[in-house]
């Protein structure tokens, strides 16, 4: 894997792009998950798996700076996000892209304006290149022709693709995708999976994907973590196919083989 220029710290090729250390997530006094540990290398697709309500999206919120953990560290390179000051956090955030579950396109802006905004905020490119870069990202996801449309005029799959274009437009080294296939028909879902693989090829970004869609997990993930809603901690790590074949925990088996626990 080539060494990428990391905008923020003294990250080098030997260092994990993102490391999570003994993370504990709570909403007020309610424990969501604890003892979460993993590392993500450049160019890998890492799946965060688990049943509905187990805390996958909560973990994602913590990783992208929306929810402070009760304990533990989120390290971007060697920089602890939650121990950093606001200026450093802003720098760290400039190197991540996020596709939200609902795509989260800003409804008052056109598709092109949505995709251009990250470039305008970061202001690292000359202004006259913003539009060209945004159009390039829209072409990657096959949405260039919709550049002047408003989000309200787009289908769910189209919104996801525009959201993906917005996430990659600033060429981040880390992409976070929250349930990218949720609400999509199987054909659109497969297309989106292919698009994610294509984006990984083009950008060499590490991708964290939060999902419980089995076909997407098997098609995309190189590595992953399985969160258990009852034990409130991870119960398996590794490549999804290995997890399916080697981890005998009934919840993991039921999830990875799409069966009821009683039938195992």
């Amino acid at each position, binding site marked *: 894997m080539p060494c990428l220029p990391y905008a923020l710290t003294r990250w080098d090729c030997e260092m994990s792009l993102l490391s999570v250390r003994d993370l504990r997530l709570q909403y007020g006094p309610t424990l969501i998950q604890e003892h979460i540990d993993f590392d993500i290398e450049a160019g890998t697709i890492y799946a965060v798996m688990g049943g509905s309500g187990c805390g996958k999206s909560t973990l994602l919120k913590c990783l992208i700076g929306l929810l402070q953990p009760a304990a533990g560290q989120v390290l971007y390179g060697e920089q602890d996000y939650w121990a950093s000051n606001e200026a450093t956090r802003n720098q760290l955030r400039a190197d*991540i892209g996020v596709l939200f579950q609902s795509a989260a396109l800003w409804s008052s802006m056109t598709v092109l304006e949505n995709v251009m905004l990250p470039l305008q*905020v970061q202001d690292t490119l000359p202004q006259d290149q913003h539009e060209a870069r945004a159009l390039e990202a829209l072409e990657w996801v096959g949405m260039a022709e919709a550049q002047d449309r408003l989000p309200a005029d787009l289908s769910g799959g189209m919104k996801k693709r525009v959201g993906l274009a917005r996430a990659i437009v600033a060429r981040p080294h880390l992409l976070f995708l929250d349930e990218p296939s949720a609400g999509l028909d199987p054909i659109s879902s497969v297309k989106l999976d292919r698009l994610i693989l294509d984006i990984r090829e083009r950008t060499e970004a590490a991708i964290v994907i939060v999902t419980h869609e089995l076909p997407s997990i098997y098609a995309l993930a190189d590595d992953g973590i399985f969160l258990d809603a009852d034990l409130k901690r991870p119960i398996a790590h590794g490549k999804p196919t290995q997890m399916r074949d080697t981890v005998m925990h009934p919840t993991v088996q039921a999830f990875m083989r799409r069966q009821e626990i009683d039938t195992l």
Partner: protein
Amino acid sequence: MLTPVPQAITLLGDTLLAVWRGIRRGWQFRPQDFARILADASARALLIVLVVNVLVGAIIAFVGAVQLLKFGAGIFVADLVAIAISREMAAVITAVVMCGRTGAAFAAELATMQANEEVDALTVLGLNAVDYLVLPRVLTLLLMMPLLYLFGCVGGLLGGFAVSSSLLELAPIAYFDRSVAALTYTHLGLGFFKSMAFGLLVSLAACFHGLHAPRNAAGVGGATTHAVVTGIVGVIALDAVFAVCADALGL
């Protein structure tokens, strides 16, 4: 019940800091968004503000005339309407109308953005929701409410004039003279200042409830309701405070 109070005070503080940041480093919000919000809260609100204030002016004139005519003081209806409208009613009624119209729209829009994770998307980009979403709305009502108040004053005076000249058979010139004599800078200044305060209150209440709404459809409805209730009750309570203060200051 008082749990949101510290959060509301925090929002007020954040807004003041956002104004300071905006003055020093430039505004973070998009001019297009500000223009859209401004247009919606000004030109598109003129008709409803005018209609309501005309009616309020007419009602004051009618109620006042019934009493004043008993004492042969019908001409003082003009004073009553001018003072009541400029000092109290135009500011309060305009604020109530804007609370139900624009405040509700602000709250619904922000609550929907919250439910759709649009606010999270801004935060991840490093944009502050207060700088980007709250400030243009607060500035809009802070700027537009005084102008709408003046427009409301004109409407209220016209309503009073229409009733007085038609039903009470007061000479238009005499009514006009009395109205001009009664309209002092003190009354107009007080109403103007109050309308700015009401604009701040209505916009902050709307933004607060919008940004703190639960992330679902019911949350959007709840945010809108709470924004309107908080705004209207707040405007009336604040007006009472202004009345006491104005009295204490001899205004």
